[in-house]
């Protein structure tokens, strides 16, 4: 508003420099103060500390599934039948909206481990249902095959496979 540039014989460039320097420092300071206020909403350390779980597979018979809670989400662990494995491995890549081999998804063919959250809008699909005898999401009708890959419906991607390792033959660690 009431600018007085050049008013009393000031050197305008010097004044501009002070103005920009002060404003710049101010902006850096504000950004530094605002970042903690945003970052506080990211997962806290106790949440991060709980982000892996161990599961014992020994009790799950062939053809059975269990659902475990990992980071508040369902993880499906299915002991697949030979037929399911054969079906999953026979599908040509060209038929898949999100092409991914079954070998890459199930490290040991009989154990399929994946996050049970529909990649459409987050519902939990139902097991051994749908047109491909895999999973079917009742919310908006997405069909997944016996490898948990999307085949039909609005979901864009396969059910994701979490990071996991075999601690020994019967125990895995997810996350």
């Amino acid at each position: 508003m009431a600018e007085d540039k050049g008013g009393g014989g000031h050197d305008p460039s010097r004044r501009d420099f002070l103005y920009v320097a002060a404003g710049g420092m101010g902006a850096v300071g504000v950004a530094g103060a605002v970042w903690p206020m945003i970052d506080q909403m990211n997962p806290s350390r106790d949440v991060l500390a709980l982000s892996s779980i161990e599961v014992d597979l020994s009790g799950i018979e062939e053809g059975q599934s269990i659902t475990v809670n990992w980071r508040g989400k369902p993880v499906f662990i299915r002991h697949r039948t030979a037929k399911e494995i054969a079906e999953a491995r026979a599908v040509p890549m060209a038929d898949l909206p999100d092409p991914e081999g079954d070998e890459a998804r199930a490290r040991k063919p009989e154990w399929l481990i994946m996050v049970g959250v529909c990649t459409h809008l987050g519902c939990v699909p139902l097991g051994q249902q749908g047109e491909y005898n895999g999973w079917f999401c009742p919310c908006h009708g997405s069909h997944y095959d016996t490898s948990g890959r999307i085949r039909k419906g609005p979901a864009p991607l396969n059910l994701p496979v979490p990071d996991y390792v075999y601690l020994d033959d019967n125990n895995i660690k997810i996350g």
Partner: protein
Amino acid sequence: MSGHSSFESNNAIVKWIEYRLPIFSFIHGAVGVYPTPKNLNYWWSMGSLAGIMLVLQIVTGIILAMHYTPHADMAFASTEHIMRDVNYGWLMRYMHANGASFFFIVVYIHILRGMYYGSYKAPREILWWMGIIIFILMMASAFMGYVLPWGQMSFWGATVITSLFSAVPLIGESIVTFLWGGYSVDQPTLNRFYSLHYLLPFVIIGVVFVHLWALHHHGSNNPLGIDRKGPQDSIPFHPYYTVKDLYGLGVFGTIFALVLFFAPNYMGHPDNYIPANPLVTPAHIVPEWYFLPFYAILRAIPDKLFGVIAMFASLLILFVLPWLDTSKVRSARFRPVYKMLFWAFFIDCIILGYLGGKPPEGIFIVAGRMATAFYFLFFLILPFIGWFERPKKLPESISTAVLDSGGGGAPDGATAKAEERG
């Protein structure tokens, strides 16, 4: 409030909005061209600082509320969770806890500024009232906030302060039970305090608006305490006072940061890091420092009911200050007797604050009674001072006073030393 604006814009969008909602001329009128006395000193920066602190308390408070659990079994643990687990949670909590202290520092200076320069006198009595209401609401917010971490001081502070109401004859006990929602400070108390602690700052915002409305109607008082005689006595708020206030904010922020990062628990009490225990009272319980002068007055009176009355009276008497002070002269600069009395009152408040933090025994009791007596004496002798005191000669106008003392006011406004040492 937008009365001073002659806002014009060539921007089509701005014009479209302005025609429907005159928000630009409102802002322009309130903090742009708003004519302000040209001689304000840094004591006048406290108002904007108080506003900034209120916003900071609300922002950090909303953030704490995202991680805090208002339950007697979990409140303490959730506060520790904020301190240890939440990203920058320690910073958010320390900002909020120390922010409350700094908010009070700023507001206390703001109030004393008003008393020194006679800002409460006509036509600013309602402005003054709104300020006291804000102050009382702040005390209520801070008290209830301090209960939330559910440490030993939280719990016993809540017990003691709510029990003040048991001094009310006949219905005292029922009032306290009502406040607690039970037979002791417990889950219902914590839950309602949390709700009210969240609410009150927004009520404060509302009162702040009325405060500013009244302020902008007659404009700021100034260190000379005389009315402005014409446009030569004013300068536009922006850029002069925006820059001055920003500089003040920089100095204030530096001090705040020093405490925040190097002594964050200096103003706190270690016992509040012990979880609340309804069966054991800490040996020596004290409120937060900003309540100490009032706490000292409470303890000075050896009678339960009268102690409570004295404590509330020490606050409420501020409401009638504009009428207790019978002098027509505002600024203490021209009132030799009042000036001395003011400083005596100031020192008395510091002494009361010191005594409030001491155990009620021996010499402290006697001193507490004397300091309390003087606190009220100040208000009681004020009317007489106005009658016999011979004020110094007031300057013709702000401009003549400022120019006489060698300050600026020359065309080269940017370097004007609008300030005058008092």
